[in-house]
């Protein structure tokens, strides 16, 4: 073996060592899975305990707080959940897909957890929405109103595009409901107007109390990595792309019965899945550009290896294999960042039920495939608000979609969807000379 080939093999072996060492650290998806399994099994306190006890990277701290808050809320500890969300909200920086330069977006999306988790404005809005609910359930109206103002600020500053994607009625309606409890009637009226007609604005009559029925249905989509190989410059280049994956468990219909009779309210809804998918599609050109930018340094390095060692002395096949291997390994070292708030529901549904004081039985049916029925007994007090919070995924089982690092999604529905989006972008780019 020539000294040149030996050097090349040593170089490649060292790169393999780096990957193996890097591979020892668990990914976020792997770390959260134990907590997810407990949560979806119905052991929400255990899920919170697992999250609390996990030795996490400081870069993921704010994201873990979000997951912890979800587990605490599901276990009924609303005050602790609220505290975690307040801390997460204070520490989370915003990743703005529209304003962020492609290079910086690439750094955020392909740093493999090496940078602090940054939230989208949509996630920030979800934090405020979930915390309005936490504080309302904990009967801390003043703090709920703080969250309502923060949510309103995000919506009014158009940081979350309110007119591009309709669907923020629940946030407005819940803010209106909170302001009404706070006796800030002008703010309540403004918020209810933005929400449109929902039963959350129907005031309790004299001699009644109020039950806020919240159903958090299904599981929010999560990010996974798709690996594509594109022919660039006559060679196959690996492209790591974060894809948003829908998860099963969403029901087709939510109905509410009170004391055995159907309740015909006008629910307010926040369809997290639809809004997240719409945002993902809108952000796709930027994500692809950022992903493509990550290909360049890998290609330069592997091509550099080729040029350094190809000499026509019969070792070129080895060099080619090593160069391809090098590019793959570098792709493994810098995967797409797939961290996301996984314990969120697919959608949130809320109704207001005004009732006479006393004990009432509220029956909630999540209809369709995997139908589930939840029955809650509630003591209604005059002029007071009680919150019923049902999370349909808790106790529904983990499901059959395990996540695996570097899973090759070629041919999967998610890959087909992402590929279609890439093709759309390429066609548009071609049409408009981009």
């Amino acid at each position: 073996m020539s000294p040149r080939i030996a050097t090349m093999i040593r170089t490649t072996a060292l790169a393999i060592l780096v990957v193996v060492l890097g591979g020892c650290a668990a990914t976020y998806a792997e770390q959260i899975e134990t907590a997810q399994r407990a949560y979806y099994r119905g052991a929400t306190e255990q899920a919170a305990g697992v999250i609390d006890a996990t030795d996490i990277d400081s870069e993921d701290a704010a994201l873990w707080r979000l997951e912890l808050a979800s587990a605490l809320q599901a276990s009924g500890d609303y005050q602790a959940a609220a505290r975690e969300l307040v801390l997460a909200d204070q520490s989370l920086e915003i990743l703005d897909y529209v304003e962020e330069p492609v290079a910086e977006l690439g750094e955020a999306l392909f740093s493999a957890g090496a940078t602090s988790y940054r939230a989208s404005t949509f996630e920030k809005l979800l934090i405020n929405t979930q915390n309005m609910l936490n504080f309302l359930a904990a009967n801390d109206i003043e703090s709920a109103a703080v969250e309502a103002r923060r949510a309103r600020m995000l919506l009014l500053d158009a940081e979350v595009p309110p007119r591009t994607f309709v669907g923020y009625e629940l946030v407005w309606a819940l803010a209106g409901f909170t302001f009404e409890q706070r006796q800030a009637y002008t703010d309540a009226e403004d918020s209810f107007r933005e929400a449109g007609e929902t039963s959350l604005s129907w005031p309790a009559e004299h001699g009644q109390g109020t039950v806020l029925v919240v159903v958090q249905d299904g599981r929010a989509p999560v990010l996974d990595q798709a690996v594509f190989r594109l022919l660039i410059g006559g060679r196959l280049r690996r492209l790591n792309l974060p894809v948003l994956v829908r998860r099963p468990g969403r029901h087709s219909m939510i109905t509410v019965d009170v004391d055995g009779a159907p309740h015909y309210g006008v629910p307010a809804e926040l369809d997290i899945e639809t809004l997240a998918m719409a945002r993902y599609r809108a952000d796709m050109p930027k994500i692809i550009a950022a992903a493509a930018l990550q290909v360049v340094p890998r290609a330069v390095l592997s091509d550099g290896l080729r040029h350094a060692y190809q000499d026509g002395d019969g070792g070129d096949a080895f060099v080619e294999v090593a160069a391809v291997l090098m590019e793959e390994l570098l792709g493994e070292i810098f995967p797409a960042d797939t961290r996301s708030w996984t314990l969120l529901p697919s959608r949130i549904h809320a109704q207001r039920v005004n009732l006479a004081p006393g004990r009432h039985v509220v029956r909630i049916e999540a209809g369709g495939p995997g139908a589930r029925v939840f029955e809650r007994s509630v003591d209604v007090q005059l002029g007071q608000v009680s919150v019923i919070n049902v999370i349909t995924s808790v106790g529904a089982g983990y499901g059959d979609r395990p996540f695996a690092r570097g899973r090759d999604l070629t041919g999967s529905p998610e890959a087909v969807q992402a590929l279609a989006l890439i093709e759309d972008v390429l066609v548009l780019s071609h049409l408009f000379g981009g």
Partner: protein
Amino acid sequence: MCRLSMFLMTLALLPACDPTFTRASDDPSIDEAALSTRLDRTDLDLALDNWLAGFEASPFYRRATTGDARPNIAILRIANDTSEHIGSALDNLLNSAETHLVQSERFKVVDNTLITRDAIMAERLRNLGDSVDPETIAALGREYGIHYFVNGRVGDTAEKSGDTKRVQYYLFMRVTDVATGIIEYQHQIDITKQLDD
């Protein structure tokens, strides 16, 4: 390529930086920097100084503290009507005001925790906002012998432009006569905080 691998290995082996801790008594300047748009101790100290200066110079103060009998006063709460979670900062402000009133020996200060231990009264006061209804005012006089109480409200105007976020706080603190329900003294304190990313 060898260089790349060596570089990556070197990065992994770099020693972690130890955190450093500083005591304000050693370096008073650490209390001065604004680290967020929420209220910090410097803001609260300024607000308290501002309020006390106005309060002690007011005709009400002179009138109420003239004579041998010291009137009973209680510090209730400041309603947070802002977009920031500053409830604990407001509690600290009230505690500082209470401390000052106790040390002035011009009033008998009724322990606030006596009132908040009463579940019904605490519930009445908790979500009231800045207004206190006549029934609660009467109960404060009847059940705790309070002549005056201090409460308030803080609101804000929060704005954002690009990477700059500015929060303007408007803090109102007032003294109410329990017997008449009349606001005897009110003072507004303005505080502005700005964050540039």
